[in-house]
């Protein structure tokens, strides 16, 4: 039985005091320990951003990948060894900005990954530029006249593109978030938990207090997470606008969509019978294949 602290290295987190990443970090460790993952078999892949600094703090089989490319690395890893549990942590700029193509295509793939989005609606590590989930009209150093684009509808995109588990969490509610992460890890297939993760340094709008006034738990409202059309409709209320008032602007957290029992990507690969390193212990006999050429 692993304890949350088993997943900590000796490096103390360097996130800004009050950063939402602390809540997520707590929830992640709790989830790992409650699911009782083995340290050796838990592989975590990070993109680049403040969230990615977690690679230095997390004791696991870690891969700190490139900005926006955690998903393909994780996909290669998961397919190379089906015995691993592979978790992806990505940022909003990272996963829904530069990496959005991989995200959308991964949703279609139902690969067995748990994808945790650190969605602080800002580029933290590069000092506060607009991210793809920054509210429209918000001014940042890269958009001083306000963001002209609508934010990415992460939930809608994930549902529309076929992800089989789509949830929204809030770093300020660690217990609820722990539950979502556990579900994502144990879900067979592509599971996304997009997490409101306030950045206290650069995003002065979407603060923990701001969210606390607005989030509500879907579980309590009797939400039917199996209705895809309803999930898509709900996705239109899962992102918000600059001016959204607490009473008009209710942001659901919880499991928004869930589709169980579908084959995973690996299920479609009968040749994937175990870790692929076993294929390369000695030369493969290709005489038949070679002889067919001619």
């Amino acid at each position: 039985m692993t304890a949350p602290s088993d997943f900590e290295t000796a490096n103390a987190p360097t996130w800004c005091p009050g950063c939402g990443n602390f809540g997520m970090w707590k929830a992640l460790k709790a989830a790992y320990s409650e699911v009782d993952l083995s340290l050796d078999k838990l592989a975590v892949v990070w993109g680049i951003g403040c969230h990615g600094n977690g690679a230095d703090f997390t004791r696991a089989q870690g891969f700190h990948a490139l900005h926006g490319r955690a998903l393909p690395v994780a996909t290669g890893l998961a397919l190379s060894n089906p015995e691993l549990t592979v978790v992806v942590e990505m940022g909003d700029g990272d996963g829904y900005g530069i990496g959005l193509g991989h995200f959308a295509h991964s949703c279609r793939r139902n690969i067995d990954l748990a994808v945790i989005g650190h969605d602080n609606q800002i580029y933290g590590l590069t000092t506060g530029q607009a991210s793809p989930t920054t509210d429209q009209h918000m001014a940042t150093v890269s958009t001083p006249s306000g963001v002209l684009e609508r934010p990415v509808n992460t939930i809608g995109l994930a549902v529309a593109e076929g992800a089989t588990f789509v949830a929204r969490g809030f770093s300020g509610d660690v217990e609820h978030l722990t539950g979502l992460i556990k579900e994502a890890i144990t879900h067979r297939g592509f599971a996304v938990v997009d997490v409101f993760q306030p950045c206290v340094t650069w995003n002065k709008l979407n603060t923990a207090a701001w969210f606390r006034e607005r989030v509500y738990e879907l579980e309590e409202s009797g939400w039917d997470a199996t209705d895809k059309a309803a999930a898509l409709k709900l996705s239109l209320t899962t992102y918000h606008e600059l001016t959204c008032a607490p009473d008009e602007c209710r942001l659901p957290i919880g499991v928004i969509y869930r589709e169980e029992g579908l084959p995973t990507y690996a299920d479609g690969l009968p040749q994937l019978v175990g870790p692929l390193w076993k294929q390369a212990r000695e030369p493969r006999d290709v005489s038949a294949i070679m002889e067919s050429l001619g």
Partner: protein
Amino acid sequence: MLADPRGPDRQDLQIKIGGEAGYGIKAAGQTLARCFVHGGLHTFDLTEYPSLIRGGHNAYQVRVSPDELYSHVLPVDVLVALNQETVTRHLDELVGGGALLFDPENVDEGSLSARTDICAVAVPFDEVVKEAGGLPVMRNVAALGAVLGLLGYPLSYLEDSLRAQFARKAPGIAEQNVAVAAGGYERASRAGCTFPVRLSPLPDPPKRLLVDGNEAIGVGALAAGLGMYCAYPMTPASSLLHFMAAHEQDAGVVVKHTEDEIAAMNMVVGAAFGGARAMCATAGGGFSLMVEGFGLAGASESAVVVGVFTRPGPATGMPTWTEQSDLRFVMHAAQGEFPRVVLAPGDRTDAFELTWKAFNLADQLQTPVVILGDTYLSDNRESVEPFDLAAVTVDRGKLVTDGPISAHPEALAADGTYLRYKLAPDGVSTRALPGVEGALQVVNSYEHDEYGFGAQGEAAATRTAQMDKRMSKLKLAGSLVPPPALFGVPPSEADISIIVFGTTKGPVRSAMQWLEREGTKVAMLQVVTVWPFPADRVSEFIDTSKRTMLVEGNHDGQLEGLIRQECMRSIDWPVHRYDGRPFSPEQIYHTVKGVLCSDCAK
């Protein structure tokens, strides 16, 4: 017109089939080559096609000889014109005394009138098909039959080939094809053209392969224990994806057609982390998108193999043609500095060997290895001796796949912590796969310390130690990589010494056959491993040469620049080509003759 260097006693013969894109010209040519190879002859194919599915012009050449062949040649001995455009484009290529097979329904006989020196044989292909009770698509088969008939080569080889092709799927169709082939054979054999070369099957033909470069690379990779292949289609690498996909089940390989090349490269890095032997391949344009992930492989010390098969650039360029213009690009791709190995196969046998070796090198060095090919290698088939499968070895270097890491004290810190990036004299640390008990790690794109932690990597001493560790692998690489290969006479005895890399090898070897026959002594050095560069061997070659020539398929003289840089030596006669066409042996032959002719002042 320059003289045909093959000379009057030549043993080889080249057949060209031309027609509209999308009408199976390539398949027909390949079938023809197969008939010859099954008869024990050697073949070398050349395909020419535009980047269009239809509406353009395709041509396929088969060069055939009882002797070993290294390349195509320019002249055509038998031209098969399935449409008028073939005549318009290629009639000039037909040698005097050559034969033209044409369909009078599609080709205007008036357009042939200038060539009174050829044997023009009209075969109404559609009529042949109809008479034999075949389907309209069998027109090409009629043409193939006609070619064999014209040459007096036994029809049975074509019959066997057609039966083998269709037998499983549709035996009825096979027999229709056979009948059509017989019809074409019969018509053309009556034409009575005579050839200087008479092709006969050998009584006891040796078993040979008929492979293109991508197939050779594919077999090499599978033999090496490839576990995952990721790619996004791009000419001329696409057929390697098709090859891998076709064998995913029987070989047990995970093959992923990814959303783009970025994903392909990063997925391969992820798969390598997991312990798979992993490979991706693309053309230069796709590699442009892989550059960042290629650097990730370098920084994270990932054992990956990357195929880069050059077509003419820049940008989309000329998708279906060939060039050798990505050498410096692959050498310097990605920000920062890290060790890499670049192997450049010159032919299909090289391609097989260098590919399986690439996997060993990647594992031994824990760094990316590039197989640098081109369209001339990828697309064209060559008859070769069966690959030496017995020679294949799997050496995974310092890899721990299972069991507890504590059994590998050399990989641990004093306190027993596993250190993924532990400093080592040869630069290579012990690599434990995820899942190995107790071997926790951070594989990192950031600079890092021995464990893999990023924040610690910013210390100047740590950085320098890790850079030196990584870069020292190039020294180890120097002792592991395949050396340059010498062909012909030693340079000290040669009238001219030629340096090449990649597929220029073939046309130069062909030209050497002709030059040697005439008494010209030629030395050729093929730079097989382009990086790390074999500076000593190349310098020695140059220093012991009378005069040097360098033949490379690019504008800038990329290998030449590398020789200047690494050997501080210049080349007397650099030869370039960048029109998308491969070097012909004739170009090399005549250039050498020009250089050596008595009245050419250097």
